[in-house]
């Protein structure tokens, strides 16, 4: 059963999601147990896959529907015809992040989301979000990538409008769904151009046979720009604050790793499909790198400046999510610019570190942003409102949430003992060697991030104990504290021991993404 692990990791939660409407008729506790069991089994399977990948070294390939899972080319042909899953370092890195984040947000929402007839659909959609993310990260087929991206966007836009008593949650879901539908349609146009040229959808086969004609470059634009749009990069970031703030807190934590899954799509398509150091004709990486860098710097700056003026705690954190995406784009962009330099001296010097910093930041961001959104969920639970001016004296009430908030805030601003620092220092060092101005901008944005979180801390946590504005005062349910505790542990542990994480997770990810260097 070991060689069937890749497909089981995707289809076991799918099977559980299909059965949930039937299980729910028995008892809602049975449904909670079944869903928790399914998501836990996904985490176990992804860890087993990671171990198997590190043992075997070569990417794992699983062909669907053939006599044997390893039969890539049918007899006597030199091109694949079936759908394939290909798991290398980078997909496992992203799959681990997504699986852990969805597990923690599901454990958090078991007690946080009130028990009513809609909770069953909430569980199904959260599990199908996990299926969408894993499918996106494992597949090696362009159209299959499109289908799983569609699964991810529809289930997350439905979850965004879960709370029906807020006036704007349906409209936030509508905007998010509209952006996703337009983005996936243009992705399909890009896939059509590739199909018309090379007759196949397999990313590995296309990587070998691509000739960078003008049509390929246009197909690149039609595929990478919509995915960057869905990842919340700067030109089309308008949906991010609405979707993140209207969604319930655990859903927003999962949404953060959903946007990172489409960021994975950006890097996977621009490297595994187009990165082709073998053939003589290469895409000119200089401009592609600089475009990513400019997007990154703009996202950083606009994200943090907009966050400073917000007074709704969830919108403030949503704008910070945009600015942190800017860090990842900056890190990988610097790596891309120097990737194709002759001799590879520049790349060896700092390009590789920048790339590692950018990719490591993806995992860190998923954990500490998830922690921050979960704490904001508790703040909304306690005060019944999201407006910072109406909150006061939270620290008296609930010291555990205060500690979690401090951990998250320090991690996001890159303060040493926490994991934000580990990846940001990598980015600062390498970007400084590339061009000092960018590094200074990055540090300045970090300072602004710390400033805005101090404002939130001062506004909501300090101040006298005030009886009349507290809505719920009893201690938090066990699962809520457990979920936030797991995120706190991860944020602290990866901050204290970044060396191991870099060696075992980030290095194979960069090796998988950028072979040959």
């Amino acid at each position, binding site marked *: 059963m070991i060689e069937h692990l890749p497909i089981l990791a995707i289809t076991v939660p*799918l099977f559980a999601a299909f059965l949930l409407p039937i299980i729910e*008729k028995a008892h809602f506790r049975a449904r909670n147990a079944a869903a928790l069991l399914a998501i836990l089994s996904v985490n176990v399977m992804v860890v087993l896959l990671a171990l198997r990948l590190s043992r075997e070294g070569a990417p794992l390939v699983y*062909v669907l529907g053939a006599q044997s899972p390893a039969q890539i080319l049918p007899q006597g042909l030199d091109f694949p015809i079936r759908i394939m899953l290909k798991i290398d370092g980078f997909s496992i890195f992203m799959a681990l992040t997504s699986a852990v984040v969805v597990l923690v947000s599901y454990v958090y929402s078991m007690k946080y989301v009130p028990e009513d007839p*809609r909770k069953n659909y909430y569980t199904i959609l959260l599990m199908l979000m996990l299926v969408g993310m894993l499918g996106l990260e494992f597949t090696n087929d362009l159209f299959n990538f499109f289908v799983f991206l569609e699964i991810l966007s529809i289930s997350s836009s439905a979850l965004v409008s879960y*709370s029906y008593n807020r006036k704007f949650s*349906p409209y936030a879901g509508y905007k998010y769904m509209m952006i996703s539908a337009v983005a996936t349609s243009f992705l399909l146009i890009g896939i059509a151009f590739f199909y018309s040229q090379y007759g196949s959808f397999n990313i590995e086969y296309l990587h070998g046979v691509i000739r960078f004609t003008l049509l390929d470059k*246009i197909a690149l634009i039609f595929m990478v720009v919509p995915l960057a749009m869905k990842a919340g990069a700067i030109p089309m970031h308008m949906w991010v604050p609405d979707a993140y703030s209207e969604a319930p807190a655990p859903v927003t934590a999962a949404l953060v790793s959903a946007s990172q899954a489409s960021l994975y799509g950006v890097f996977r398509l621009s490297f595994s499909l187009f990165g082709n150091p073998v053939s003589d004709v290469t895409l000119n990486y200089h401009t592609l790198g600089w475009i990513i860098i400019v997007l990154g710097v703009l996202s950083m700056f606009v994200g943090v400046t907009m966050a400073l003026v917000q007074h709704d705690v969830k919108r403030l954190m949503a704008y910070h999510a945009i600015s942190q995406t800017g860090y990842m784009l900056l890190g990988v962009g610097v790596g891309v610019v120097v990737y194709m330099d002759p001799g590879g001296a520049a790349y060896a010097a700092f390009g590789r570190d920048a790339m590692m910093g950018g990719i490591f930041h993806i995992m860190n961001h998923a954990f500490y942003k998830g922690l921050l959104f979960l704490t904001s969920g508790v703040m909304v639970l306690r005060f019944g409102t999201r407006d910072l001016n109406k909150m006061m004296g939270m620290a008296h009430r609930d010291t555990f949430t205060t500690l979690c908030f401090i951990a998250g805030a320090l991690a996001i601003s890159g303060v040493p003992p926490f994991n934000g620092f580990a990846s940001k220092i990598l980015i600062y060092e390498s970007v400084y060697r590339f061009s000092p101005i960018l590094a200074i901008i990055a540090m300045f944005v970090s300072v602004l991030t710390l400033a805005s979180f101090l404002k939130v801390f001062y506004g909501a946590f300090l101040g006298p104990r005030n009886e009349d504005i507290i809505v719920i005062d009893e201690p938090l349910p066990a699962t809520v504290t457990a979920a936030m505790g797991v995120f706190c542990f991860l944020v602290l542990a990866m901050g204290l021991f970044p060396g191991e994480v870099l060696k075992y997770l980030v290095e194979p990810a960069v090796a998988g993404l950028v072979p040959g260097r």
Partner: protein
Amino acid sequence: MRLISLLSVVFIAGFLLVAVMRLHPVGEPLGNRDVFRFRGDTVTDMRNVDTMDDYFLRNGQRETGSNNIVASVVFDYRGFDTLGEATVLFIVVCAISMLMSFLYNQNYVMEANFRGPDEFPRNVSRIISFGSFMLFPLIISFGIYLVLHGHISPGGGFQGGAVMASGTALLLISLLITRHVQRTKVIFSFFESLGLTVFISLGFAGITASFLYNFLANGSPLFLGRTIPFGPNPGFLNSAGILPLLSLAVGVEVFFGISIILIQLYHFTRYASRAGGGRDI
């Protein structure tokens, strides 16, 4: 802001036009003009297989046993996409039932005071009600024909399920399903999950080879595995291995899924509703 969106539309239009000029002319074999060209020749000679499609056209019938090559590509060669597709429909059904669930809790009064289905309601003319009552069985049987003959003639799970769902739409328009909304929804969602579980368990059944492997094709002659000769043949109902079963499972899922969507959207019109209670989360 207007200028930026105008510029981006013009920019995208320019890219599309340039790209389409470089595309292979309509009707020519695949492949870019100035790079290389795939030869898509006649169907029957086996030698020059260039692209995925040539392989499907030449080996699809023998490997999967179905005459309709598109059905063999949809359910066998690229069956994982179809599983993803059935999941997309399942997600939308769950999402709409979630968003519309305030219809069923008690603090919503029924807006229209129409009577139950025992006698045809007054605001629908007798012709429509009786006509749709007569037409419904015909639509359902045509839908079932489309689903079952998916691997012989054009059709399949999605098309058959959609045709049957338009039968439900007909019944809704003529107000025949009116009262037992909650009970119909529960039964339909049970059948929808049943169809999906059958689909994915058929995928698991072939797990010894690999997921969604067509283990019944060309194997057991008596049950759905009849091997058919290459080239023109009358087409047999029991060929194509698990294809008819998958098509049936998808047909069931699509019919009940879209019927749930239609019933809930339609019954939204019957309810005046006040904004729900509940805590901000």
